[in-house]
């Protein structure tokens, strides 16, 4: 019964939070409305998300977020330096292939998103079978290092989450 | 500010007019779009310009509000022109697919439909 009403409780909870953020006012009425929406909206959109993944370790998620945010801040300064102070001809842009161990589309997407959001690298394309990511590196000497860093820092953590 | 708004309307109008005078449907659609931008801003401006005075009533504040009526009119106009543009786009597409070219001018206004087409239309 509960399973049918709330197929993805975490997902529904997220929506309730989003709703409260939207209305920006935590009242009983809004909570109630949020709860209703939290149940109805996933029910409507469920067909579009077949094979809903389940997150193994929510705590790891927080860790991952922290790592990424920190990387973003650091990389931002690094890349800003490149843009502002490095001569264009000195910038060595390279393509890097990152083969993947992940198979969950959600995990791959998060990894690709992480790569892009951390300045300096942009995940440009997947292989046709989704098995590797083509990453563009703004300024790097050693493509292998970049690949290993991505696999170690992000992919490893994601494998633990999913 | 007023000059910027007025001149923006003017520029949009000029661009729109130039484009609706082109010979193919697509630029004409673009022109109509520009014209509808122009007229929307024009209509909006008839309420005169005001900064930070949205017509959303505030319970405990005695503040000025800009003229809400033109905004409502523009909203109506936007919706209508959306519907119209959609129809226009479809007409243009349909005419292109039927005629295999997208010239908007009909060379001979009296052009006679060949009988098979008439049969299709009939």
């Amino acid at each position, binding site marked *: 019964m509960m399973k049918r009403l709330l197929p993805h409780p975490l997902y529904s909870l997220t929506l309730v939070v989003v709703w409260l953020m939207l209305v920006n006012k935590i009242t009983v009425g809004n909570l109630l409305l949020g709860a209703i929406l939290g149940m109805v909206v996933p029910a409507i959109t469920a067909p579009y998300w077949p094979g809903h993944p389940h997150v193994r370790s929510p705590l790891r998620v927080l860790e991952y977020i922290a790592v990424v945010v920190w990387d973003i801040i650091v990389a931002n300064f690094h890349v800003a330096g490149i843009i502002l102070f490095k001569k264009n001809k000195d910038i060595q842009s390279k393509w890097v292939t990152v083969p993947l161990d992940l198979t969950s589309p959600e995990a791959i997407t998060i990894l690709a998103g992480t790569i892009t959001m951390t300045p300096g690298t942009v995940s440009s394309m997947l292989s046709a079978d989704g098995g590797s990511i083509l990453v563009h590196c703004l300024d790097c000497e050693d493509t292998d290092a970049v690949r290993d860093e991505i696999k170690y820092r992000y992919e490893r953590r994601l494998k633990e989450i999913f | 500010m007023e000059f910027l708004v007025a001149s923006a309307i003017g520029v949009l109008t000029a661009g729109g007019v130039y484009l*609706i005078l082109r010979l193919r*449907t697509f630029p*004409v659609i673009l022109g*109509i779009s520009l*014209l*509808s931008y*122009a*007229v*929307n801003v*024009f*209509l909006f*401006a*008839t309420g005169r310009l005001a900064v930070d005075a949205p017509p959303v009533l505030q319970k405990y504040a005695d503040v000025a509000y800009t003229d809400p*009526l*033109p905004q409502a*009119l523009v909203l*109506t*106009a936007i919706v*209508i*022109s959306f*519907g*119209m*543009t959609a*129809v*226009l786009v479809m*007409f*243009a597409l*349909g*005419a292109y697919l*039927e*005629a295999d070219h997208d010239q*908007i001018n*009909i060379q001979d*206004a*009296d*052009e*006679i*439909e060949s*009988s098979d*087409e*008439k*049969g*299709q*239309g*009939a």
Partner: protein
Amino acid sequence: MNHWIIAPVVLPALLAPLLAFVMRHDIVLSRAASAVGTVCLAAIAIGLTMLEAGGGTQVYFLGNWTAPFGIVLVLDRLSAIMVLLTAVLALIVLWHSIATGWDKRGRHFHALFQFQLMGINGAFLTGDAFNLFVFFEVLLIASYGLMIHGGGRTRLRAGLQYVVMNLAGSTLFLFALGTLYATTGTLNIADLAVKVQAMPADDVALVRVAAVLMLIVFAIKAALFPVQFWLPGTYANAPAPVAALFAIMTKVGAYSIIRIYTIVFGPDVAATQGIVTDWLMPAAIITLALGAIGVLGAKRLMPLLAFSVVGSMGTLMLAVSAFTPYALSTALYYLLHSTFAGAALFLLADLVVSRRGNDALTAQPPIVQNGLFAALFFVGAIGMAGMPPLSGFLGKLMVMDGVRDQSWMALAWGAILIASLVTIVGFARAGSVLFWKSTAMEPAEASDTVTPATALQVGPAMCAMGMLVALSVFAGPTASYLESTAAQLFDSSGYIDAVLSPALEGLK
């Protein structure tokens, strides 16, 4: 408040979605519902017209908001007669569409048809300038759908032009409304009248611009020179019954000019002095000329009829441009006449063209019932060209009589008469080629595949011609109703009081 006033709008507006979304798979049901709806509309229109015969302007305050803050509908003699005209025409056209099976040649005919009626009635009844725009759009977009009903290359391309022209027109309408609002701060027609009358004499430039822009907008609908160009292509390529229905569309433009330029920018209003008569009259004359020339120069039947519609609008607007009560009453008579005359010809043309396979004005083997169609064409042509005994002749005489006190009387008379002659010659040539010359040829071999028109199919065209006869026979009473209509229009204070005084009494 009399809720029947809004019925001509709400009835088709509620019926149309049902037709489109509930009954769309059942043509019999759609036809029945559409027909019943239109009959009801006609009944309501008759009721409203009779109600208005007694005089007095009735106002319907939508949303229970007083004027000028909400939107009002205004029922006076003019709006009543226009709604009635629409309903009667709609009945005839609907009958034709069903009898000839036109309604089956594409999707959603009945829904679009009802929406079209809704838009037209809404435009006639509204007492609000912006709302007039909205209903213009309703009737236009429905007409786009009807215009391309059944599809086909030429029709679609002509339809595209029609849409583009009207979109440009709608844009100008908004510019005009914006200017009007920017100068007067109101949108209600009665309130506009008050504000424009009170306009200080040293600050009228903007309101004059608004008045002129508005005039051009309505002129597009009324197919007046130099914005008449769209009409022939559109009417000539529209499905014939739709072209017949469109006979009322040009009248919407004429109606709007009559309404706005009597009530708001009336002849006595100092601010907009001279705007209408100065520009309307020459435009009307050129329109008339272009229409007549088009009739003579057309290579196909449908454009010929379309040009005759252009010409009739020229005559009509010529009478309007005099802007005297009597001239206006003659204009209204001509309006009624030309609507049915145009419709009759287009309906008839449909019967002929569908049997002939095309509408080229070249000799082709005779079609079945050649004599019948020739006779009907003769009658229709007489009606359109303004020959006796049909209402066109009386209308022409009345219009000439109506403008006789104008300084440009000679010009107007000359234009009307010469245009009449050219039109007559044009129609005679066309009829001669279509129905007479063909008798010298062998009947087409495939003629056995062409089915003769049934009484049910010829009925609507004859009905429209019957309206011309009726207008002619009952010209006296009709003219007297129209004279009081014109008088009511020129007494703008009656309109203004009816709309605005309830606000003073505190409605809400």
